[in-house]
């Protein structure tokens, strides 16, 4: 093979259209006669709806229709449950999902109540102003612990309490282990809400073609195929009548796979009902309240250890804020339960959570999806234990690593994919050592760190570890096809939100077919191109879809070699594919173009073998029996401004192991972007609710996304421990950057204020909150 594509640092196929402003995003869809939607959303977190008067709105200029829940008739349905509860013995799950428009009662600020359809977005918003709602306000459930008290107001009256779920998982006997312990570290930890804030908000455009009786929907979703299937069922159409296109998407990070958002089912319904194309584009203020959130949890946790630092067990009892509804099941708190264990041997583990309904925006996965909460608890407990035991925090971690000869390693608790959480492969000490070396742990502490401290600077260093379960099932599929032009088409069912699939998937195919990158066109996110699949989530695109693509490409490769062997009269084993040709190994002038083979594979006359499949084309599927577990370490040196308590990061190191790397350039970008979100989560981004359930900072003026001045340069080191689960040995990488940043900041800040007795048991922080903690320590 001329050049290896798999593993090469190649630039992306999709970039020219993005860089020249020609990439089509949902809001770029313009159709003749298109109508525009704006929603009247609840102003209250919790209130009975006494009446909604839409008469004035309906009379406004340009208004075509105004719909309330009552107007939806039988189409009004609570959205389906996206992920059922796990098969954990005794698990309680109370399913409460939202209908498209609120009726009787509103349960969070931003819940849609009325849909206005007008000739322009401006006119639709004018009419929304004229919708008159008479509310009877109720006390809002905002605080998790108050929410489970007997006296609490009820988010769902019929339930009689606010417990959305209760799950207990046990491994071993924690109480017995605790009785044997030399040291027990017990703390309460808080992890507050943030939002994914993709730069593109959500959007849906729908067009009903009455002649062809077909519906086309452009949707900013991460999962176009399940959306297609669900819409068809809800609208009484066959799946072949519905085409869902997830075009270029301006960032997803998890919340763009909440099925179904009310808008996703209402816009197509309105388009069919009105016989005109309908568009809805979320504005930023809506996005803050109507796109799902993540991360509110309170943990009562403890760790039992021996005097020499061996972990005997962990017990963690936590509340999880699920918001007003729980359409995504228990994925987030299950990830928390599982990811807490990290790279460590924890022989005895009791983990229990209660998911709590609150009068706040619904919670579904956002990059990390509960994993960072677990990592926060574990890494903080380890730091506190190290301090208590007088041990170096890195040495304490090293002593508890799962040894490399213990893989696959079964943690004996149930993961989000409902299998027992089993790590496929791992080797943690090299990662720790590399991160320690890259940050200069010992040298910095003895040298520059000591010098800066002597100068009165508040500087600290930290290093934390994590694992990330990636690449879970159920499955993905792909079709690879060589055209008679020699161009190669690759189609898969997942969506793309910036991960570089158009490139990394082309690399996988190019590696097998010997075709240059520029001749490989990848289609993702269009149900007309590929009909099967689940979606982009849980760092699974490269692992699951990538492996399906690999298998399809191998089938095409083998077919090409067989056909070429016949044409060139050599054994197929002697045929290799290079630069668009099938050629005889060692005699490269004896060759036939792949394009020619594709032509011959589609004869227009004459006889072919009875079982022959036409075309140089193959389809393949891949469903992993379990996820592939990536892992890594982050390390940090930071300085605190003594007057403002703002931070300056001197150095940030990530050592990451996600198996074999398809494209190091793309991987670096994923890691850097993840860290940036983690930094936001650690020190800048917090959704602040008041006691009535009003979000206080629903704008980019008040909710601070990190800027180029806040995110440092990140030095990345790679290790490659291959996954045994798939032929390329890959693991997912999408979320890892974001996962361990919170506890890393805490550790480094405690180090910076050493001697001050500072303990940081919460995230997110802010300069003000840090000042409060330091001055009260």
């Amino acid at each position, binding site marked *: 093979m001329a050049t290896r594509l798999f593993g090469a640092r190649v*630039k*992306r196929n*999709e*970039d*020219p*259209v*993005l*860089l*020249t*402003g*020609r*990439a*089509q*995003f949902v*809001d*770029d869809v*313009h159709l003749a006669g298109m109508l525009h939607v704006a929603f009247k959303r609840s102003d209250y977190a919790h209130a009975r709806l006494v009446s909604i008067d839409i008469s004035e709105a309906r009379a406004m200029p340009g208004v075509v229709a105004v719909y309330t829940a009552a107007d939806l008739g039988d189409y009004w349905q609570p959205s389906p449950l996206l992920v059922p509860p796990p098969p954990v013995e005794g698990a309680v799950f109370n399913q409460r999902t939202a209908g498209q428009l609120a009726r009787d009662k509103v349960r969070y600020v931003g819940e849609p109540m009325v849909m206005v359809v007008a000739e322009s977005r*401006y006119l639709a918003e004018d009419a929304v102003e004229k919708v008159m709602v008479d509310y009877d306000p109720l006390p809002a459930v905002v605080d998790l612990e108050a929410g489970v008290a007997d006296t609490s107001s009820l988010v769902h009256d019929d339930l009689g309490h606010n417990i959305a779920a209760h799950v207990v998982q046990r491994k071993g006997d924690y109480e017995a282990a605790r009785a044997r312990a030399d040291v027990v570290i017990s703390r309460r930890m808080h992890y507050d809400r943030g939002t*994914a*804030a*993709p*730069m*593109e*908000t959500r959007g849906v455009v729908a067009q009903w073609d009455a002649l062809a009786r077909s519906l086309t929907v452009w949707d900013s979703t991460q999962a176009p195929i399940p959306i297609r299937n669900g819409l068809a069922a809800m609208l009484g159409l066959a799946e072949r009548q519905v085409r869902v296109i997830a075009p*270029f*998407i*301006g*960032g997803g*990070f998890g919340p763009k796979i909440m099925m179904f958002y009310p808008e996703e089912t209402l816009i197509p319904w309105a388009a069919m009902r009105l016989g005109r194309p309908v568009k809805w584009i979320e*504005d*930023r203020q809506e996005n803050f309240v109507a796109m799902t959130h993540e991360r509110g949890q309170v943990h009562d946790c403890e760790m039992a250890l021996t005097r020499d630092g061996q972990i005997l067990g962990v017990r963690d009892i936590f509340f999880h804020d699920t918001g007003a509804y729980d359409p995504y099941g228990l994925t987030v708190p299950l990830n928390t339960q599982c990811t807490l264990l990290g790279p460590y041997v924890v022989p005895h583990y009791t983990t229990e959570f209660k998911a709590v309904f609150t009068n706040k925006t619904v919670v579904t996965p956002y990059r990390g999806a509960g994993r960072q909460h677990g990592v926060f608890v574990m890494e903080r407990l380890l730091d506190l234990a190290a301090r208590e035991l007088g041990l170096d925090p890195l040495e304490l971690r090293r002593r508890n690593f799962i040894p490399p000869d213990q893989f696959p390693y079964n943690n004996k608790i149930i993961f989000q994919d409902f299998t027992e959480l089993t790590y496929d492969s791992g080797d943690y000490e090299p990662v720790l050592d590399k991160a320690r070396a890259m940050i200069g742990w010992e040298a910095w502490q003895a040298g520059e760190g000591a010098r800066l401290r002597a100068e009165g600077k508040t500087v600290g260093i930290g290093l934390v570890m994590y694992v990330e379960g990636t690449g879970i099932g159920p499955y993905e599929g792909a079709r690879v096809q060589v055209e008679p032009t020699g161009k190669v088409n690759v189609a898969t069912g997942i969506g793309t*939100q*910036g*991960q*570089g699939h158009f490139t990394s998937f082309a690399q996988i195919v190019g590696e097998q077919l010997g075709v240059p990158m520029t001749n490989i066109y990848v289609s993702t996110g269009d149900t007309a191109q590929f009909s099967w699949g689940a979606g982009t989530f849980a760092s699974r695109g490269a692992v699951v879809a990538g492996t399906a693509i690999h298998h399809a490409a191998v089938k095409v490769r083998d077919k090409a070699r067989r056909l070429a062997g016949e044409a060139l009269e050599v054994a197929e084993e002697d045929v290799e594919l290079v630069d668009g040709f099938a050629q005889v190994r060692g005699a490269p002038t004896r060759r036939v173009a792949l394009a020619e083979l594709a032509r011959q594979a589609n004869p227009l006359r004459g006889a072919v073998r009875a079982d022959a499949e036409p075309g140089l084309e193959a389809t393949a599927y891949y469903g992993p029996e379990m996820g592939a577990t990536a892992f890594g370490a982050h390390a940090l040196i930071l300085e605190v401004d003594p007057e403002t308590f703002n931070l300056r990061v001197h150095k940030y190191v990530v050592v990451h192991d996600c198996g074999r790397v398809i494209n190091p*350039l*793309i991987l*670096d*970008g*994923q890691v*850097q*972007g*993840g*860290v*940036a*979100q983690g930094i936001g989560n650690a020190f800048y981004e917090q959704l602040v609710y008041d006691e009535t359930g009003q979000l206080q900072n629903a*704008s*980019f*003026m008040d909710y601070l*996304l990190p*800027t*180029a*001045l806040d*995110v440092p*340069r*990140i030095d990345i080191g790679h290790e490659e421990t291959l996954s045994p689960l798939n032929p390329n040995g890959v693991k997912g990488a999408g979320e890892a*950057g974001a996962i361990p940043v919170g506890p890393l900041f805490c550790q480094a800040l405690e180090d910076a204020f050493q001697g001050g007795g500072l303990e940081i048991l919460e995230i997110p922080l802010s300069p003000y909150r840090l000042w409060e903690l330091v001055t009260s320590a």
Partner: protein
Amino acid sequence: MTHSITITVNGQAYTRQVDARLLLSDFIRHELLLTGTHVGCEHGVCGACTVLFDGEPVRSCLMFAVQADGHAITTVEGLSSDPERLHPLQQAFWEAHGLQCGFCTPGFLMTLVPFLEANPTPSEAEVREAISGNLCRCTGYQHIVDAVLLAATRLNGD
């Protein structure tokens, strides 16, 4: 109340009747169908909608179309629409992986083109300052900074 306005966009003059309240960003995107200019927040923070107004970067979501009457606008489509001949800054973004989802990218480009004209040899700190008013949620900015420094080197013929 509508107004007749004439705006030159990427060298071509457009005359339209528009409402006084029509945002410049909506005019560019939905009247002229130049959809490379993106709208991320509509309150002037994210910078995705940045265009050049008589050569200066402005947030098109914070202006009305009528305010641009008689003025010249440059959008990302005006840099280069030919993927074979990208503007050096676009080329550098491509090579340095300065974009992921690409939604914020046009705003970064339109902020940086005049910046590099004014400061052809910026330091990394100056680049970070220059883009501190543009939000990117995917990249962590590092590859964007790399791209700008690469473009600066090339534009200076090094």
